[in-house]
Protein backbone atom coordinates (compact mmCIF):
# COMPACT_ATOMS: atom_id res chain seq x y z
CA UNK A 1 0.00 0.00 0.00
CA UNK A 2 1.26 3.40 -0.83
CA UNK A 3 -0.36 6.57 0.34
CA UNK A 4 0.07 9.25 -2.25
CA UNK A 5 1.47 12.03 -0.14
CA UNK A 6 3.78 14.79 -1.09
CA UNK A 7 6.19 16.02 1.49
CA UNK A 8 5.03 19.58 0.98
CA UNK A 9 1.53 18.68 2.07
CA UNK A 10 2.63 17.87 5.57
CA UNK A 11 4.18 20.36 7.82
CA UNK A 12 5.33 17.78 10.27
CA UNK A 13 4.76 14.38 11.78
CA UNK A 14 1.70 15.48 13.73
CA UNK A 15 0.19 16.86 10.56
CA UNK A 16 0.88 13.58 8.78
CA UNK A 17 -0.62 11.58 11.60
CA UNK A 18 -3.77 13.68 11.54
CA UNK A 19 -3.97 13.13 7.84
CA UNK A 20 -3.65 9.40 8.29
CA UNK A 21 -6.39 9.40 10.91
CA UNK A 22 -8.76 11.64 8.98
CA UNK A 23 -8.39 10.42 5.46
CA UNK A 24 -7.40 6.83 5.72
CA UNK A 25 -9.56 5.85 8.66
CA UNK A 26 -6.51 4.84 10.56
CA UNK A 27 -6.56 4.78 14.28
CA UNK A 28 -3.68 6.27 16.14
CA UNK A 29 -3.60 3.12 18.26
CA UNK A 30 -3.62 0.94 15.23
CA UNK A 31 -1.36 2.53 12.69
CA UNK A 32 0.27 -0.08 10.49
CA UNK A 33 3.69 0.70 11.78
CA UNK A 34 5.55 -1.25 9.15
CA UNK A 35 3.79 0.56 6.34
CA UNK A 36 4.17 3.96 7.91
CA UNK A 37 7.83 3.27 8.39
CA UNK A 38 8.10 2.30 4.75
CA UNK A 39 6.44 5.57 3.79
CA UNK A 40 8.79 7.54 5.95
CA UNK A 41 11.74 5.84 4.36
CA UNK A 42 10.30 6.61 0.96
CA UNK A 43 10.13 10.28 1.95
CA UNK A 44 13.71 10.26 3.01
CA UNK A 45 14.69 9.07 -0.44
CA UNK A 46 12.62 11.80 -2.04
CA UNK A 47 13.97 14.46 0.18
CA UNK A 48 17.04 16.47 -0.48
CA UNK A 49 19.82 15.82 1.91
CA UNK A 50 19.57 19.31 3.43
CA UNK A 51 16.06 18.53 4.60
CA UNK A 52 17.36 15.85 6.93
CA UNK A 53 16.56 17.98 9.91
CA UNK A 54 12.91 17.99 8.98
CA UNK A 55 13.03 14.31 8.16
CA UNK A 56 14.39 13.47 11.57
CA UNK A 57 11.18 14.79 13.08
CA UNK A 58 9.20 12.30 11.04
CA UNK A 59 11.54 9.55 12.08
CA UNK A 60 11.19 10.55 15.70
CA UNK A 61 7.44 10.20 15.36
CA UNK A 62 7.86 6.78 13.76
CA UNK A 63 10.00 5.80 16.72
CA UNK A 64 7.27 6.95 19.11
CA UNK A 65 4.70 4.91 17.21
CA UNK A 66 6.88 1.83 17.24
CA UNK A 67 7.42 2.30 20.95
CA UNK A 68 3.67 2.49 21.56
CA UNK A 69 3.02 -0.46 19.37
CA UNK A 70 5.64 -2.60 21.10
CA UNK A 71 4.32 -1.66 24.52
CA UNK A 72 0.84 -2.67 23.46
CA UNK A 73 2.12 -6.05 22.38
CA UNK A 74 3.69 -6.76 25.73
CA UNK A 75 1.58 -8.18 28.55
CA UNK A 76 0.52 -5.41 30.90
CA UNK A 77 2.04 -5.49 34.34
CA UNK A 78 -0.54 -3.78 36.55
CA UNK A 79 1.93 -2.50 39.14
CA UNK A 80 4.32 -1.20 36.57
CA UNK A 81 1.52 0.54 34.76
CA UNK A 82 0.65 2.47 37.89
CA UNK A 83 4.18 3.50 38.48
CA UNK A 84 4.52 5.03 35.08
CA UNK A 85 4.03 8.74 35.13
CA UNK A 86 2.14 8.94 31.89
CA UNK A 87 0.69 6.72 29.25
CA UNK A 88 2.61 7.45 26.03
CA UNK A 89 -0.62 6.99 24.11
CA UNK A 90 -2.31 9.62 26.25
CA UNK A 91 0.54 12.05 25.66
CA UNK A 92 0.29 11.54 21.94
CA UNK A 93 -3.49 11.92 22.08
CA UNK A 94 -3.22 15.17 24.02
CA UNK A 95 -0.72 16.46 21.55
CA UNK A 96 -2.92 15.56 18.64
CA UNK A 97 -5.99 17.17 20.19
CA UNK A 98 -4.07 20.34 20.98
CA UNK A 99 -2.68 20.44 17.48
CA UNK A 100 -6.06 19.84 15.91
CA UNK A 101 -7.48 22.61 18.07
CA UNK A 102 -5.06 25.09 16.58
CA UNK A 103 -5.73 23.83 13.08
CA UNK A 104 -9.37 24.66 13.64
CA UNK A 105 -8.57 28.04 15.13
CA UNK A 106 -6.29 28.78 12.21
CA UNK A 107 -9.10 28.14 9.77
CA UNK A 108 -11.32 30.52 11.71
CA UNK A 109 -8.59 33.11 11.75
CA UNK A 110 -8.16 32.77 8.03
CA UNK A 111 -11.80 33.63 7.48
CA UNK A 112 -11.29 36.93 9.27
CA UNK A 113 -8.53 37.89 6.90
CA UNK A 114 -10.74 38.38 3.84
CA UNK A 115 -11.91 41.96 4.19
CA UNK A 116 -9.16 43.11 6.45
CA UNK A 117 -6.53 42.82 3.74
CA UNK A 118 -8.65 44.89 1.39
CA UNK A 119 -8.12 47.93 3.52
CA UNK A 120 -5.48 50.52 2.78
CA UNK A 121 -3.88 52.75 5.35
CA UNK A 122 -2.34 56.06 4.60
CA UNK A 123 1.21 57.19 5.07
CA UNK A 124 1.63 60.07 7.37
CA UNK A 125 1.31 63.36 5.51
CA UNK A 126 2.06 65.99 8.03
CA UNK A 127 1.92 69.44 6.45
CA UNK A 128 5.29 71.06 5.82
CA UNK A 129 4.48 73.90 8.20
CA UNK A 130 4.17 71.35 10.97
CA UNK A 131 6.95 68.93 10.14
CA UNK A 132 9.41 71.82 10.04
CA UNK A 133 8.10 73.25 13.27
CA UNK A 134 10.17 73.07 16.39
CA UNK A 135 8.58 73.98 19.67
CA UNK A 136 10.14 77.12 21.11
CA UNK A 137 10.62 77.85 24.71
CA UNK A 138 8.60 80.67 26.15
CA UNK A 139 11.11 82.95 27.90
CA UNK A 140 8.40 84.50 29.99
CA UNK A 141 7.31 81.15 31.34
CA UNK A 142 10.89 80.16 32.01
CA UNK A 143 11.66 83.35 33.86
CA UNK A 144 8.66 82.86 36.08
CA UNK A 145 10.88 80.54 38.04
CA UNK A 146 13.49 83.18 38.75
CA UNK A 147 13.33 86.76 39.85
CA UNK A 148 16.01 89.35 40.35
CA UNK A 149 16.69 88.51 43.92
CA UNK A 150 17.33 84.89 42.98
CA UNK A 151 19.44 85.87 40.00
CA UNK A 152 21.39 88.28 42.15
CA UNK A 153 21.96 85.85 44.97
CA UNK A 154 23.11 83.18 42.54
CA UNK A 155 25.48 85.64 40.95
CA UNK A 156 26.82 86.66 44.34
CA UNK A 157 27.48 83.10 45.36
CA UNK A 158 29.20 82.33 42.06
CA UNK A 159 31.50 85.29 42.42
CA UNK A 160 32.19 84.36 46.00
CA UNK A 161 33.11 80.84 45.00
CA UNK A 162 35.46 82.28 42.46
CA UNK A 163 37.12 84.51 45.05
CA UNK A 164 37.39 81.52 47.39
CA UNK A 165 39.40 79.67 44.83
CA UNK A 166 42.12 82.25 45.00
CA UNK A 167 44.10 81.61 48.15
CA UNK A 168 44.55 85.14 49.53
CA UNK A 169 47.79 84.26 51.32
CA UNK A 170 49.66 82.23 48.77
CA UNK A 171 48.53 84.37 45.89
CA UNK A 172 50.77 87.07 47.32
CA UNK A 173 53.89 84.87 47.23
CA UNK A 174 54.45 85.47 43.58
CA UNK A 175 55.20 82.79 41.10
CA UNK A 176 57.39 79.88 42.02
CA UNK A 177 59.23 78.49 39.08
CA UNK A 178 59.19 74.78 38.75
CA UNK A 179 62.50 73.07 38.91
CA UNK A 180 63.63 71.83 35.61
CA UNK A 181 65.13 68.42 35.18
CA UNK A 182 67.42 67.19 32.50
CA UNK A 183 67.76 63.60 31.38
CA UNK A 184 71.41 63.74 32.45
CA UNK A 185 70.48 64.72 36.00
CA UNK A 186 68.07 61.86 36.25
CA UNK A 187 70.55 59.40 34.74
CA UNK A 188 73.05 60.37 37.41
CA UNK A 189 70.43 59.97 40.11
CA UNK A 190 69.66 56.49 38.88
CA UNK A 191 73.34 55.59 38.71
CA UNK A 192 73.70 56.62 42.34
CA UNK A 193 70.81 54.37 43.23
CA UNK A 194 72.48 51.58 41.29
CA UNK A 195 75.58 51.96 43.39
CA UNK A 196 73.54 51.59 46.52
CA UNK A 197 71.20 48.78 45.51
CA UNK A 198 71.58 45.78 43.31
CA UNK A 199 68.07 46.29 42.00
CA UNK A 200 65.19 48.57 42.82
CA UNK A 201 61.51 49.07 42.00
CA UNK A 202 60.57 50.99 38.88
CA UNK A 203 57.29 51.92 40.50
CA UNK A 204 58.90 53.33 43.63
CA UNK A 205 61.27 55.35 41.52
CA UNK A 206 58.47 56.98 39.56
CA UNK A 207 56.40 57.58 42.65
CA UNK A 208 59.23 59.54 44.18
CA UNK A 209 59.20 61.98 41.31
CA UNK A 210 57.58 65.33 41.89
CA UNK A 211 55.32 66.24 39.04
CA UNK A 212 54.58 65.04 35.56
CA UNK A 213 57.72 66.47 34.00
CA UNK A 214 59.94 64.68 36.50
CA UNK A 215 58.23 61.37 35.77
CA UNK A 216 58.66 61.79 32.04
CA UNK A 217 62.30 62.79 32.33
CA UNK A 218 63.01 59.87 34.67
CA UNK A 219 61.39 57.50 32.24
CA UNK A 220 63.52 58.87 29.42
CA UNK A 221 66.62 58.47 31.60
CA UNK A 222 65.78 54.80 32.19
CA UNK A 223 65.37 54.23 28.46
CA UNK A 224 68.69 55.93 27.81
CA UNK A 225 70.49 53.79 30.40
CA UNK A 226 68.96 50.66 28.90
CA UNK A 227 70.17 51.68 25.49
CA UNK A 228 73.64 52.15 26.91
CA UNK A 229 73.42 48.65 28.33
CA UNK A 230 73.96 49.78 31.90
CA UNK A 231 70.68 48.62 33.35
CA UNK A 232 68.26 45.82 32.76
CA UNK A 233 64.50 45.76 33.25
CA UNK A 234 63.04 42.69 34.88
CA UNK A 235 59.47 41.58 35.42
CA UNK A 236 58.74 38.15 36.94
CA UNK A 237 55.10 37.93 35.93
CA UNK A 238 52.46 39.98 34.22
CA UNK A 239 51.51 43.01 36.36
CA UNK A 240 54.34 42.30 38.77
CA UNK A 241 56.49 45.18 39.85
CA UNK A 242 59.17 46.05 37.33
CA UNK A 243 62.68 45.86 38.69
CA UNK A 244 65.59 47.90 37.51
CA UNK A 245 68.86 45.99 37.75
CA UNK A 246 72.30 47.42 37.37
CA UNK A 247 74.54 45.37 35.09
CA UNK A 248 77.54 47.61 34.64
CA UNK A 249 78.30 48.23 38.30
CA UNK A 250 82.10 48.00 38.01
CA UNK A 251 82.45 50.70 35.42
CA UNK A 252 80.27 53.16 37.18
CA UNK A 253 80.18 54.45 40.60
CA UNK A 254 81.38 57.45 42.39
Amino acid at each position, binding site marked *: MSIPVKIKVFEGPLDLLLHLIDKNKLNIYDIPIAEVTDQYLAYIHQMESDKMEVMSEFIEMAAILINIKSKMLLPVDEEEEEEETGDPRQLL*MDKLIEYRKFKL*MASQLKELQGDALRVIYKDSTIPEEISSFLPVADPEKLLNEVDFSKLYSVFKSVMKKKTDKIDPIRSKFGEIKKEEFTVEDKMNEIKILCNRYESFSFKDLLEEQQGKVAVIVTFLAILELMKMGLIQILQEALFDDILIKFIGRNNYGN
Partner: protein
Amino acid sequence: MEISKIEAAIEAVLFSIGDAVHINKLCEVLGQDKKTTKRIISNMCDRYEEENRGIKIVVLEECYQLCTKPAYYEYVKQISHKTREFSLTDVLVETLSIIAYKQPITKLHIEEIRGVNSNHAVNKLIEYQLVSEVGRLNAPGRPVLFGTSQDFLRCFGLESVEQLPFLEESQLSMLKNEVLEEVQLKLAD
Protein backbone atom coordinates in the same frame (compact mmCIF):
# COMPACT_ATOMS: atom_id res chain seq x y z
CA MET B 1 -15.25 73.49 21.80
CA GLU B 2 -18.22 72.53 19.66
CA ILE B 3 -18.72 68.87 18.89
CA SER B 4 -18.43 69.49 15.16
CA LYS B 5 -15.07 71.16 15.65
CA ILE B 6 -13.85 68.27 17.77
CA GLU B 7 -14.91 65.85 15.09
CA ALA B 8 -13.10 67.86 12.46
CA ALA B 9 -10.00 68.02 14.62
CA ILE B 10 -10.05 64.24 15.12
CA GLU B 11 -10.40 63.69 11.40
CA ALA B 12 -7.58 66.11 10.65
CA VAL B 13 -5.28 64.48 13.17
CA LEU B 14 -6.01 60.90 12.13
CA PHE B 15 -5.65 61.86 8.48
CA SER B 16 -2.31 63.57 8.75
CA ILE B 17 -0.76 61.15 11.23
CA GLY B 18 -1.82 58.19 9.11
CA ASP B 19 -0.79 55.78 11.83
CA ALA B 20 -2.87 54.63 14.77
CA VAL B 21 -3.33 57.32 17.43
CA HIS B 22 -3.96 56.43 21.05
CA ILE B 23 -7.16 57.66 22.68
CA ASN B 24 -5.19 59.28 25.51
CA LYS B 25 -3.22 61.33 23.06
CA LEU B 26 -6.42 62.52 21.40
CA CYS B 27 -7.99 63.41 24.74
CA GLU B 28 -4.93 65.39 25.72
CA VAL B 29 -4.82 67.39 22.51
CA LEU B 30 -8.55 68.00 22.36
CA GLY B 31 -8.87 68.77 26.04
CA GLN B 32 -11.71 66.27 26.36
CA ASP B 33 -12.16 63.37 28.70
CA LYS B 34 -11.90 59.80 27.51
CA LYS B 35 -15.59 59.08 27.66
CA THR B 36 -16.56 62.10 25.60
CA THR B 37 -13.84 61.46 23.06
CA LYS B 38 -14.89 57.83 22.68
CA ARG B 39 -18.49 58.84 22.23
CA ILE B 40 -17.61 61.41 19.60
CA ILE B 41 -15.47 58.93 17.70
CA SER B 42 -18.23 56.37 17.88
CA ASN B 43 -20.59 58.90 16.30
CA MET B 44 -18.02 59.65 13.65
CA CYS B 45 -17.71 55.94 12.89
CA ASP B 46 -21.43 55.82 12.24
CA ARG B 47 -21.18 58.74 9.86
CA TYR B 48 -18.28 57.15 7.98
CA GLU B 49 -20.58 54.23 7.33
CA GLU B 50 -22.63 56.42 5.01
CA GLU B 51 -22.68 55.41 1.38
CA ASN B 52 -20.73 58.30 -0.04
CA ARG B 53 -17.73 57.82 2.28
CA GLY B 54 -14.72 55.83 1.10
CA ILE B 55 -12.86 55.83 4.37
CA LYS B 56 -13.60 54.66 7.89
CA ILE B 57 -12.09 54.58 11.34
CA VAL B 58 -10.67 51.31 12.65
CA VAL B 59 -10.22 50.66 16.32
CA LEU B 60 -7.06 48.85 17.42
CA GLU B 61 -6.82 48.28 21.10
CA GLU B 62 -7.25 51.85 22.33
CA CYS B 63 -5.97 53.38 19.14
CA TYR B 64 -7.80 54.84 16.18
CA GLN B 65 -6.72 54.86 12.58
CA LEU B 66 -8.26 55.92 9.29
CA CYS B 67 -8.33 53.48 6.40
CA THR B 68 -10.13 52.88 3.13
CA LYS B 69 -13.27 50.81 3.08
CA PRO B 70 -12.77 47.27 1.76
CA ALA B 71 -15.60 47.81 -0.73
CA TYR B 72 -13.42 50.22 -2.70
CA TYR B 73 -10.37 48.01 -2.73
CA GLU B 74 -10.68 47.34 -6.45
CA TYR B 75 -10.37 51.06 -7.25
CA VAL B 76 -7.60 51.68 -4.81
CA LYS B 77 -5.70 48.66 -6.06
CA GLN B 78 -5.52 50.09 -9.56
CA ILE B 79 -3.76 53.19 -8.42
CA SER B 80 -2.07 52.53 -5.10
CA HIS B 81 1.23 50.75 -4.68
CA LYS B 82 0.50 49.97 -1.11
CA THR B 83 -1.84 47.05 -1.58
CA ARG B 84 -0.34 44.17 0.32
CA GLU B 85 -1.52 41.02 -1.20
CA PHE B 86 0.67 38.68 0.71
CA SER B 87 -1.27 35.52 1.20
CA LEU B 88 -0.57 33.51 4.26
CA THR B 89 0.03 29.82 3.69
CA ASP B 90 -1.72 27.34 5.93
CA VAL B 91 1.53 26.79 7.75
CA LEU B 92 1.83 30.49 8.50
CA VAL B 93 -1.77 30.84 9.62
CA GLU B 94 -1.35 27.77 11.82
CA THR B 95 1.79 29.18 13.44
CA LEU B 96 0.19 32.60 13.70
CA SER B 97 -2.86 31.20 15.45
CA ILE B 98 -0.68 29.41 18.00
CA ILE B 99 1.21 32.64 18.68
CA ALA B 100 -2.02 34.66 18.82
CA TYR B 101 -3.72 32.37 21.31
CA LYS B 102 -0.72 31.43 23.39
CA GLN B 103 1.19 34.72 23.47
CA PRO B 104 3.67 35.43 24.81
CA ILE B 105 5.21 32.18 23.65
CA THR B 106 8.71 30.85 22.94
CA LYS B 107 9.70 29.23 19.67
CA LEU B 108 10.31 26.00 21.53
CA HIS B 109 6.74 25.96 22.79
CA ILE B 110 5.41 26.63 19.28
CA GLU B 111 7.46 23.73 18.02
CA GLU B 112 6.17 21.50 20.79
CA ILE B 113 2.59 22.18 19.74
CA ARG B 114 3.25 21.87 16.03
CA GLY B 115 5.63 18.97 16.43
CA VAL B 116 7.91 20.47 13.86
CA ASN B 117 10.67 23.01 13.51
CA SER B 118 9.03 26.41 13.15
CA ASN B 119 11.98 28.66 12.50
CA HIS B 120 10.99 29.46 8.98
CA ALA B 121 7.33 30.12 9.80
CA VAL B 122 8.16 32.40 12.73
CA ASN B 123 10.73 34.31 10.70
CA LYS B 124 8.27 34.81 7.84
CA LEU B 125 5.64 36.12 10.25
CA ILE B 126 8.17 38.54 11.68
CA GLU B 127 9.05 39.62 8.14
CA TYR B 128 5.37 40.27 7.46
CA GLN B 129 5.31 42.28 10.70
CA LEU B 130 2.47 40.20 12.05
CA VAL B 131 4.58 38.91 14.90
CA SER B 132 7.30 40.51 16.94
CA GLU B 133 9.54 39.81 19.86
CA VAL B 134 7.79 40.95 22.99
CA GLY B 135 10.30 40.04 25.64
CA ARG B 136 12.31 37.20 27.05
CA LEU B 137 11.32 34.32 29.25
CA ASN B 138 12.95 34.29 32.63
CA ALA B 139 14.38 30.82 32.12
CA PRO B 140 17.79 29.38 31.22
CA GLY B 141 19.00 30.85 27.96
CA ARG B 142 16.41 33.61 28.33
CA PRO B 143 14.53 32.54 25.19
CA VAL B 144 12.72 35.16 23.14
CA LEU B 145 8.97 35.46 23.63
CA PHE B 146 6.83 36.18 20.59
CA GLY B 147 3.51 37.96 20.35
CA THR B 148 1.28 39.40 17.68
CA SER B 149 1.64 42.97 16.47
CA GLN B 150 -0.81 45.78 15.83
CA ASP B 151 -0.47 44.91 12.15
CA PHE B 152 -1.81 41.48 12.96
CA LEU B 153 -4.95 43.04 14.39
CA ARG B 154 -5.22 45.24 11.31
CA CYS B 155 -4.81 42.33 8.92
CA PHE B 156 -7.48 40.31 10.64
CA GLY B 157 -9.83 43.18 11.38
CA LEU B 158 -9.60 42.69 15.13
CA GLU B 159 -9.82 45.43 17.71
CA SER B 160 -7.74 43.51 20.20
CA VAL B 161 -6.40 40.05 20.89
CA GLU B 162 -9.39 39.46 23.15
CA GLN B 163 -11.57 39.49 20.04
CA LEU B 164 -9.89 36.39 18.65
CA PRO B 165 -12.45 33.72 17.87
CA PHE B 166 -12.42 31.08 20.52
CA LEU B 167 -13.46 27.50 20.10
CA GLU B 168 -16.78 26.92 21.76
CA GLU B 169 -16.83 24.45 24.60
CA SER B 170 -19.04 22.28 22.39
CA GLN B 171 -16.51 22.37 19.56
CA LEU B 172 -13.78 21.40 21.95
CA SER B 173 -15.60 18.41 23.36
CA MET B 174 -16.60 17.40 19.85
CA LEU B 175 -12.98 17.44 18.92
CA LYS B 176 -12.09 15.27 21.87
CA ASN B 177 -14.91 12.89 21.17
CA GLU B 178 -13.89 12.54 17.56
CA VAL B 179 -10.47 11.37 18.50
CA LEU B 180 -11.77 9.17 21.28
CA GLU B 181 -14.48 7.65 19.15
CA GLU B 182 -11.99 6.58 16.59
CA VAL B 183 -10.05 4.89 19.31
CA GLN B 184 -13.12 3.18 20.69
CA LEU B 185 -14.17 1.99 17.27
CA LYS B 186 -10.84 0.42 16.67
CA LEU B 187 -10.71 -1.16 20.11
CA ALA B 188 -14.13 -2.65 19.56
CA ASP B 189 -12.96 -4.33 16.40
